[in-house]
């Protein structure tokens, strides 16, 4: 379970403070598939970073009783000067995973070939995303954070990701942050809509979509 109580996030900018998230309440239970809909700049990525625990709220409380992934397929959580293999080693050490077990899976899943032993900074963004995706699968989180549509690689690779995530790991929780209603409809049980920094919860997906679409119109 992850629960947010009255969470606020304020960033200090040169022009003064920017109140990105206001009095957020949110709850995600074990095994739940929850969508968060929002337009660009609504605070989706900030919400993801607070959920993952990478950033801390300015005020309020976040309770986290399950392990939460970093944003899936997000390639920014690497050390660019290290190779893919060394990054895998590093991340396995951080999360206390056995490296030799993870190695085979990541190598075959990420399909990097000889690039696996090249510095990550020489990777294309697709390669980084594939490596990040593969590594988050071997860490085996209770809850996966999916920021936007996981558009990684070709359709065959897409299919592989789909199988690993939505078939083999269907018992886990997913938080899918997106501006795409269809993607959320396909994968989620319920949804929140993020509008002007405020989180609106809906038990019923269609109600969420109606509210979201109405917000986009205005």
């Amino acid at each position, binding site marked *: 379970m992850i629960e947010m109580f009255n969470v606020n996030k304020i960033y200090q900018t040169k022009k003064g403070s920017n109140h990105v998230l206001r009095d957020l309440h949110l709850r995600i239970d074990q095994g739940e598939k929850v969508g968060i809909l929002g337009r660009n700049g609504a605070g989706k990525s900030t919400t993801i970073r607070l959920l993952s625990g990478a950033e801390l709220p300015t005020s309020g409380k976040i309770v986290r009783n399950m392990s939460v992934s970093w944003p899936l397929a997000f390639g920014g*959580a690497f050390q660019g000067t290290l190779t893919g293999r060394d990054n895998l080693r590093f991340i396995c050490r951080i*999360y206390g995973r056995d490296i030799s077990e993870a190695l085979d899976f990541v190598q075959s899943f990420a399909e990097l070939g000889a690039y696996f032993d090249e510095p990550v900074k020489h990777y294309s963004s697709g390669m980084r995303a594939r490596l990040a995706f593969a590594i988050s699968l071997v860490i085996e989180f209770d809850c996966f954070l999916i920021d936007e549509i996981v558009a990684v690689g070709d359709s065959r690779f897409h299919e592989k990701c789909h199988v690993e995530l939505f078939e083999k790991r269907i018992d886990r929780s997913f938080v899918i942050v997106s501006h795409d209603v269809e993607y959320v409809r396909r994968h989620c049980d319920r949804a929140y809509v993020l509008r002007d920094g405020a989180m609106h919860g809906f038990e019923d997906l269609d109600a969420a979509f109606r509210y979201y679409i109405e917000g986009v119109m205005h």
Partner: protein
Amino acid sequence: MIDFGDLAKSFTIQRRVIWALFLREVLTRYGRHNIGFLWLFLEPMIFTLGITTFWTLTKAVHGSSLPIVPFAITGYSSVLMWRNMPGRLAKAVEPNIGLMHHRNVRLIDIYLARLLLEIGGVTMSFMFLTVFFWGIDWLTLPEDPLQVIGGWLLIIWFGVGLAFTIGSASERSEVFERLWHPATYFIFPLSGAAFIVDALPKTMQMIVLWLPMVHCVEIIREGFFGSAFTAHYNAAYVIVVNAVITLFGLINTLKVSNRIILE
């Protein structure tokens, strides 16, 4: 109420994270196959040899009875301690920001990993040089090894406290970071690396003894060759300064850490 089970778990995680960061640090700084790691020893070694040569040549003029080699080793190793650690933590957030997407990786862990590597490296080079020059008969081993260790621990603590202070301040103010670097050049000649306090005029002694590292070097040197000179230091003063800067630095580090914005 403190839950000790939770505390133990957090401690395990933090140890794991710091170890992972430490290994990564070794890898990114020294690589797998170059001689980068050797510089840790070569740099102080070259300095020590240079000083020794210079002093041996000018010894006739000074008429000093100090053992030159341990004098140079203790001096320069101490400089490495208080100069390198703050240097390693200054502006350390940006190159490591990606790693902080992993929840358990906090700024303090990145700081601690870098400090551990620095402490380990300089301590190893200090020990290696002592044993090496002892092996070729250029120095005699410390008269009081425990005191050397005590002084060494004090200067490590000072370096750590200073590093937290400088590191966190460098994230909050660009100017501060720019001023710190030239400041080290002014502090260096006053730091006790190249003089003993007893040889200075009284007024000068009072001035340099404001600097905690001078006390530390005096303590270390008294442990090495205390019978050859009169040491001037006040360990209590160093402890108080260390405690204050460590606390101040840690509080600031926490503040910086809570304000980090990820990409």
